[in-house]
């Protein structure tokens, strides 16, 4: 009897281990349209309304817990000042981008509505309803999907700056991969010098970003702002419109014998605490991945 139970216990364990390994292996091998991804989107779509309901129902309890933390860190004042700073930063970023890109682009911006919202896109405000529980994944789930016009590769901005881009969608939800995710890279431009590079995360440290591949002859100082460059080059268009604030330079020290500069940034957007984001629907030009 006891041996039978031990055998059954081992069989269940082996089955679960094999299932885990098979899932991990198949998930990486198949494309985003594969059966596991489809099944995953299906489960997410079915549970989406429950997730949204739970998010709303648990908000008071969440706020209560967070209140202690916020009181402990005296963050109330900080948030107000951060909002004011973010508004000023947006205005500054837009002004500097317009100046740098000249009158022609300025007129074009004026023609297409100006600011960071490019022509043909529809800003969609969404609530963050799910968040990855670890620092290894930098993704969030939002409560707007293909039914609201959200598509894969659409740019997503938070209150203070660029948040990331949409990487998967269902009818009612979408997954946003944040700029701190290891799979993320964004072409950025330092203001006001105009130096460009690629913004990538320091994996495992969501408070630190790196601006890579900046020419060594560019003179960049701490505190300067980095915005999206928004390159356009035929099939290689950036998914991010130009001029969205990304972060500020925290360490621009130049190391010797480096082909390129590596500059440390601090993201403007508070990616761990954001409650609402705005999707620039149509900016990415991707396909919907409705499950």
């Amino acid at each position, binding site marked *: 009897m006891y041996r039978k139970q031990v055998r059954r216990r081992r069989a269940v364990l082996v089955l679960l*281990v094999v299932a885990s390994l098979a899932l*991990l292996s198949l998930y990486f091998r198949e494309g985003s349209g594969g059966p596991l991804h489809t099944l995953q989107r299906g489960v997410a779509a079915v*549970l989406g309304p429950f997730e949204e309901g*739970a*998010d709303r129902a648990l908000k008071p309890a969440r706020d209560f817990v*967070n209140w202690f933390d916020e009181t402990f860190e005296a963050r109330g004042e900080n948030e107000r000042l951060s909002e004011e700073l973010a508004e000023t930063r947006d205005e500054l970023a837009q002004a500097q981008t317009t100046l740098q890109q000249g009158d022609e682009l300025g007129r074009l911006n004026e023609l297409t509505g100006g600011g960071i919202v490019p022509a043909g896109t529809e800003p969609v405000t969404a609530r963050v309803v799910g968040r990855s*529980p670890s620092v290894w994944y930098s993704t969030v*789930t939002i409560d707007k999907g293909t039914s609201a016009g959200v598509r894969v590769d659409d740019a997503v901005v938070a209150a203070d700056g660029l948040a990331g881009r949409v990487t998967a969608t269902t009818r009612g939800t979408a997954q946003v991969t944040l700029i701190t995710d290891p799979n993320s890279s964004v072409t950025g431009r330092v203001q006001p010098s105009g130096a460009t590079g690629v913004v990538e995360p320091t994996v*495992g440290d969501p408070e630190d970003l790196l601006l890579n591949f900046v020419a060594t002859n560019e003179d960049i100082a701490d505190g300067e702002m980095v915005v999206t460059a928004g390159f356009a080059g035929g099939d290689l268009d950036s998914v991010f419109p130009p001029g969205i604030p990304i972060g500020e330079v925290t360490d621009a020290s130049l190391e010797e014998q480096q082909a390129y500069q590596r500059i440390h940034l601090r993201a403007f957007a508070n990616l761990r605490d954001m409650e609402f984001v705005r999707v620039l629907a149509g900016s990415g030009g991707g396909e919907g991945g409705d499950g």
Partner: protein
Amino acid sequence: MILTRGIWVRLVALVLFTALAQVTFFSKIELFGSSPDGAVLVVAAVGLLGGSVAGAVCGFSIGLLVDCLLMQTLGAFAAALMAAGYLAGRYRESVGRPKRRVVPLLGGGLTLFAAFAFAAIQIGTGIDADVSTLVVRDALVKTLLGAALAFPVFWLVRLVLRPALIEDAPSGRRPTAPRPLEQRG
């Protein structure tokens, strides 16, 4: 653990509720710069109350749902939680029902184990990452929060599964024979 139809319903509800709570509550609160890992604590409680099979199956199910809800790599969180649930169950089967003062230690220890198991899976699946001080600090704060929350979560899970439990004395006053997992239709 005596598995009746009613207990199955409770277990399924517990799995669903835990996965939703992990994504919409535990992951979104911030204490001392980190978020508590409620799912690990629930899985540990089920393992400590029901044995290794119950812990592993519950961990796998909750982890798989979280992977689906967050649309992240399928099987990663499931494998980490399954391992944590299995370890908790083995503790129960080899040592016995944990004493009150041991529950926080087990909660913290299994939280730390799950954090490192998850990190190992991430590195094993190709994420090129340094083990930065932030990762280590996050794991340590999660461990402390896990230890602090272990007893209330254990108590709540015990309340939910009480009709299914085979009561025995806390460890130290009982034989070390493995606990059988009985099944009744």
